[in-house]
Each structure stands twice: as C-alpha cells, then as structure tokens.
C-alpha cells in the first residue's frame, strides 16, 4: 500500500495521508441475509474496478471518491464528491 492518490484538491499524495471509507455502489441483492444486514456487514470484495470513498485526513480534510482497480491499485479517476458518479 504505497500508491499515490490524486486528491481533487491537493494533487497526487501518498496513500497513508488518506483514510479509507469503504466502497460504494452496487451491492448485489442479499442472498444470505436481509438487505440491512447485507448492507452493514457484507462488503463486496471486488477484484477489479470499484468506486470508493477516501478521506484526506492529513490534507484538505475532504471526502472524495476514487475509481480504483483493487488488483493493481491503479486509480482511473477521482472526484470531489461522496456518492458514486
């Protein structure tokens, strides 16, 4: 985990400056539990691109959204927002 994150406000910064805030978007419909429990306790474990929230804790103190490939840590895009674009 030493990749760089392109903060929409601060530019490229090392990942340890940021706090991970979880992935957002398409949770598949629950198969084991009700939607609330699925939502709270079952995160997708995507091998590939996903939207995720990060908080720039040691920087602008803003939430942002990234599209990151979990296999390569390549970040395709970042946005100054908190919901999936």
């Amino acid at each position, binding site marked *: 985990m030493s990749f*760089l994150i392109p903060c929409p406000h601060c530019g490229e910064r090392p990942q340890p400056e940021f706090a991970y805030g979880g992935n957002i978007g398409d949770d598949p419909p629950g198969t084991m539990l009700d939607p609330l429990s699925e939502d709270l306790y079952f995160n997708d474990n995507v091998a590939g691109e996903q939207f995720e929230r990060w908080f720039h804790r040691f920087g602008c103190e803003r*939430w942002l959204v990234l599209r990151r490939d979990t296999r390569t840590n390549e970040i395709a895009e970042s946005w100054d927002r908190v919901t999936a674009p």
Partner: protein
Amino acid sequence: MRLPARDGEAIDRTQTRTFTFDGKQVEAYAGDTIGSALYADGRRIFTRSFKYHRPRGLSCAAGNCAGCLMEVDGEPSVKVCTRPVEGGEVVRSQTISGSLERDPMRVVDHVGGPVTPVGFYYRLGIRPKVAWPHIERMLRRMTGLGRVGEGPAKERRSDVENRQIDVLVIGAGRSGQEAAARHAAEGKGVILVDERAEYASLAIEGVEVIAPGTALGVYEGKLVPVHADGLLYRVRAKKIVVATGAIDQPLLFDGNDLPGVMTPSAVHRLVGLWSIRPGVRAVVLAADEAADQAAELLREAGTLVVETIDLRAARQPRVKASAKRGVLAAVEIDGRKIACDLLVASAGRQPAYSLLAQSGAGVTYDAEKGIFAPDQLVEGIEAVGSVTGDGAAVLATPEGAGRRAFVCPCEDVTAKDLVRAVGEGFEDIEIAKRYTTVTMGPCQGRLCHLHSVRALARATGVGEEALGTTTARPPWQPTPLGDVGGRRLNPGKRTALHDVHKRAGASYVWTGVWRRPDHYGDAAAEIRAVHEGVGLMDVSTLGKLYVSGPDAEAFLDGVFPNRISTLKIDRVRYGIFNTESGRIIDDGTIIRVGENDYLVTTSSGGVDQVYEAFLLWIAERELRVDIVNVSGALSAVSLSGPRAREVLARVTDVDVTGEAFKFLDVRQGPVAGMPALLMRIGFLGELGYEIHFPSASAEHVWDALMAAGAEFGIVPLGVEALKALRLEKGHIIVGIDTDSETTMLECGMGPMIAWDKGEFIGNEALGRINERGADRALVGFVADALPNEGTAILVGGEVGGRVTSARRSAVSGQVIGLAYVPADLGEEGAAFELDLGEGRRGAAKVHIGAFYDPDGERMRG
C-alpha cells in the same frame, strides 16, 4: 598481502585507520572495507556456516554472499566486505562456538549428514512432547546467524527521509553511470544508488550518489526504500532505471564453499580496488570472460596461476576441493590433485533481476544461455546493462556434484537436500523453498536461486520454464529491523496546561495519544475534595467541534439518536454517537450557543472519527452546515464539588446562583477576564461546571481558579479521580465500559432514543435490536471482593459476562463496578459470581442506578 600502489586503486595509502578484530588490532587504509583489511592482514576464515559450522571466507567480496558475516560494534551479521572502515570499530567473529579456526560444533558437519538431513527439525523431538523444549533450546543455540546483543546496536533506529525524484538509478556500474549521466543531461533530477563502498567518491554532474546504499525493494507507486549509513530514504521516483548487473554464480563441486574458493569478481575487487594479492598459487576454472580477465589480473598481482581450465569446453571436469586447517589446500580435477590456496571458480553470471521482478516485470528462462532474464517491463521502469541478460550465461548444474556441493551456502543446503525434499513430496517450488530454506538466507537468492530452480526442475522432471521461479520479494539485502522501522515516534499530545500539571507534581498516564495527569500524589484526597470541597480538572483533551449553518439543527438530529431540535439556546445535552450498525463509538455533549450555532464535544480519543463521520453525513446530504474542529484552539477545565459555585463566583461576573444558572444551562462570559463558555454539568456527581476558553489563556484561567479556590482547599484532579467519581454515578466511559458491539439499549440508554424523529445514524439497526431485545446488559454491581477490569462473571457456574470497571467506593467502602451480564439478570439484587482466578470466587449483586446520590440532588442542587 598488499601490492605496490596501482592505478585506479580505491585505497588512500596516506590515510591509515585501525579497528579491532576479536580483540586484535588491524591496520587499514582509507577506502578499505573491514573485509578487505582483514584479507590483507592474512585472514582467510571469516565466519562459520549456519548449520554445519563449516569455515567460510571471502567469496564474492561484493556484498552478495554470506561468507564474511561479522558483528560490527554490536550489530550482528554485517557483510564486512562492503562495510567501509571508519576507524575504531570493534569487530567480532560470529556463529562460532570455539574460535574461527577451531570450532567444536564442526562435528555436525562430519557426522551430521545422515542425522540432520534437510527438514530434520520438523521431525526430531516431536515425540515425546516433553523433549521438544529441550531440543528446541539446543537447536537455537547451535544454529542461527549472529546474536542480537544488548546496548546501542540493539536500540539503534535510523531516521527516515522522504525523497521525490525524477529518476532513480539503481546500480553504479558502467550502464548505471551512463543512464544517470544521460538523464541528468536532459535536466532531470537523478539519484544513483549502489551497494558498494567504492562508489562513495563517484561524481557525475547533476547526479546525487548514495553509496554505499542498498535499494531494498520496489514497491507500488515506484517507492524504493534505500538503506544507507543509518538512514532510510523513502525514494519516490517518477522513473526507475535498474542497472543491478549480473552476479557470479557458484560452481557446484565438493568443497565449493571453502575459504579460498572465490568468484572472478572477488579477484577483480581484491586486486583492482584494494591492491591485495589474493593468493600464492591459484587454479582458475573459467566459465566466462570475467574469469579469463581474473587470471590475467592474478598474474599481474604476482600470484602463480598454476592452471586455467576452460569450462566452456564440451566436457565438464570432476572437481573436488580439499582443505587443510579449514582453508583450501588443494583441488582435484578429474582425480588429478593440484596444490593451491586460491581457486577462482564460477558457473557464469545470472542477471540480478529481483528488483525488476518486484516492480512487476515478468521473468523467463532462457534455456540456451541457462539464465533467468526479465521481460515485459512495466511502464516507468527501465533495465540497462547485463541485468537484461546481455552477455550473461551460466553453465549447466551438474548432477551428483558431491556430498558437500552447496547450492545455498547461506543456509547450508546441498543439491542432495533439494532432491530429498522433492522425494518427500515438496514438489512445488514455493513449498520446496520454505521446506529447505534455500534462497531464504542472507544472499536472498543472489547465489542460489538459479541452481536451486534447476536442481528442483531436474528432480521433479518438469523443466525450468514450467517450474517457474519463486516470487521476488523485498528486502534485496538484509537490513537491520531498526532501520526499516525507523525512529520510534511518540505521537503524544499534551494539553496547554501540561507544564502546570508538571509543576503540581502530576504522575502521568497515557490515555490514547494524550498524556494526562493520573493523579497529583494522592488520588484518594482528590476524590474526597470533590465530595467535600472542590477540585479542578484539565479536560482540554475533549474533542470540540463548532457546528454552524442553517441546517445545523437538522444535521444534529440526523447524527445523534436523541432529539436535538428541542434543545434550547444556552442549554447542553448529553449525546451518544453511533455507527450505522447501532454500536456506540463515542459520547459527548451538544451545546446550543445560538439559533444555528452549536459546540459539540467528543471524548478525548473520539474526535477524529466523529469529525470524519460528520463531514460525510453533510456531504452526502448536501447540508448547509460548516464544521470547524476547535479541539486544540479551546482548552477546558471541569470545576467540581459543593464549593465550586463559590469559587466560580470569584472569577466571573456571570450570575452563577442556583436560580440563574441551572443544571444543564450554558452561559457565555468572562472567566478571569478571558472570554469563556460555561456549562453546568455533573459527570463527577457533584455540583460542577465545565469551562471552555481560548488555549492561549489556559494557564492564566487555571491559575485564577486555583487561587480563587485556595480558601476552599481546591485540588487539581487526575484521571484516576475522574474514573472513580464517575463510577459512583454509574456513568460509562466509552472504550472502557463499551466494546465494538455495545449498543445504547444495553446501557440503559434506550429511553434517550427519539424513535419517531425519522432517519438518524444507526436507526434501522437499533430498531431491529430493540425489537429482538438485547442479549446482555451493562449494569452496576456491588461485590465482596475487588475484581480486575476484565474479570469474568459467572452465572450458575458458567461465564456470563465480564467486569468493565471496578473500584472500592470512597463513599460507602463497598466494592462497586460495572459489568456486562445476561439481559435477564439486569434487575436490582440479581446475584452472580466473580471469577477471581486460582479457583477463588467473589459474590456480587446487580445494582441499578447510581451508587452515589441516586436522585442527583447534589449535582442539580
């Protein structure tokens, strides 16, 4: 033996240095390494091997092998062939049980073969079980490299320096230097790093040279930790040029590890850099040009080259080296014995591709050249020179090379051991590696990787390409953990009143990142003062968030489970902060200071997560709310005790009478002349005020309150008094009395929840738990013995919960505490037992409500 001065030598004969080796003084020149000076001094045995305690000596002289590991100034396992002599070092031999020349543990080598085959320690002493601790202790003493001693070397931790650079070139050989110069000429910032000390004086215009320094690995984002002279550089490069060259591979034959058996590059370095005659009578087994040149160099140095055998010829000779007193004395070639003290031998050169592989490049086996070479480099990584495979080739790995033909000298693994491992079923290369520990020693595969893959490929019959290679991982060179970990950082926080507490004789305690006074000498007296007189406590550690904006009210109703919209201006209310799953993560107060302005306090450790969650909530809903974290800007004190009102009246013109300033009222006004926010709350159970004011005036306000309280016997309060006093009231401390699963419903706070106000954080989950009913309850208890925090409670002999807080009450003398019990036990007087350990039990019963002043008359009065 030192030669007369030569052109291009790295030593400066006008400057001498001395160090001691095993107590004996050794002379060196500036430019020498500890290893070269010892070799020049006539030393041939440098260390003993890991398992068999075989003598070992300089073999590569380039920091690749483990032939020269020594302890330097207490630091174990230093490759002394690349450690420059500074002067004054205390160097000791390691991995010996006698002396370097005579080591009684050598017996393991002579008898060990059948007794201690590869992996023997997985089988030996497993049964009977009682034997294992003894056998383990014995094995530990017998094996391992060096010893971590006491003192400064053990404590040593290096600084970390972050560097950003256009181009990082790794390897200062010819190709590396060219690449560095080329990029510098283009105006790029360039760092050139090399492990070898002789490049310390290298100067290329526009290039920063770090030597000796080791690039330990290539991490994602092109981050390269470079370890150099007690510093760890974290180099973030836009581009990395790998010029790590190729490494002489050992030739496999019986006795290939003896001191006196040396690679061609070692000859180049001994003669070329340090002007040392490597030996008197030499035999050269030449697999490549480097060996031919080594033979030439030896002649120049006055060594008698008895015979040069070209291994590139079709038929490989049978070679066996033998020793006298631990050092090479003769070599037998196809049964013909030649006396010699130097045997220059290598199987050729294998590209040092490890850093490239770490960066994501592929590695393929070139059967024609007999090497693994990198291909498919990733973007931003360039390879230059022989690391690409240019000019590199390695002879075939012979079969049945001999009982003591070491594939992996670091770990004493022979070709036979690898065959045996495959026979035992360890056929996968990664598994075989872990079982035999081949490539896992101090050379990190530099010398043993290729031969071990080939030996395994042959034993499994699958071929090198199909077998593949093990994953290349950092570090590329052994590095002290203290240097990787860096200097111990103590991110401790101190309040603005820290020095005041120090002068008052505080004993400190860590609470999260904060250093807080635990007590000022007598916690019992502090507790008594609050009940009978007055006490003053620094609560500046509280998180403080200033929340304002048109949507502030709706926002707070959304993030807290209780109703905030009914909170009037100049009033304060307790609040719990939950996760979406309804679990308590923090608590604090909400203070309404204006129509659209609030101050929210959080616990000392909770402010960051609350702040981040607040910002997320606001952003998700696009609320018009602004939040300023004023935790550091404001300091705060808590003034508690029956005399608190009288003390406060002396330092403020705010009307503090009971009628004008009621419980949970908030006032703004000067305290000791400074602007302040005052609120009446009662966490400690007595009449109490919490006062917030600018941190710049913290000492002034504190001193004024202490002076005003002097006649009432005011005392400063520490964390211990706080914990004891709030326990009397049954007030929870988040993090002590709560865990990651605690809900408000378990803590008797269910009535606080405003179910009908619509969405708030955790409402769905809490609603669900409320329907189902909580499984456990956090209750007060009284007991006949004082349990530790965490003590198990027993219900009907079974564990049914645990104690979270317990103290002996200063008021009643009883043991009081908080504990989780099964929900059906949450009734006044319900009995349970405490498991006090060693079979002892204590009797306890549930107490509902506060232990002290249950109706709250003292704090409201």
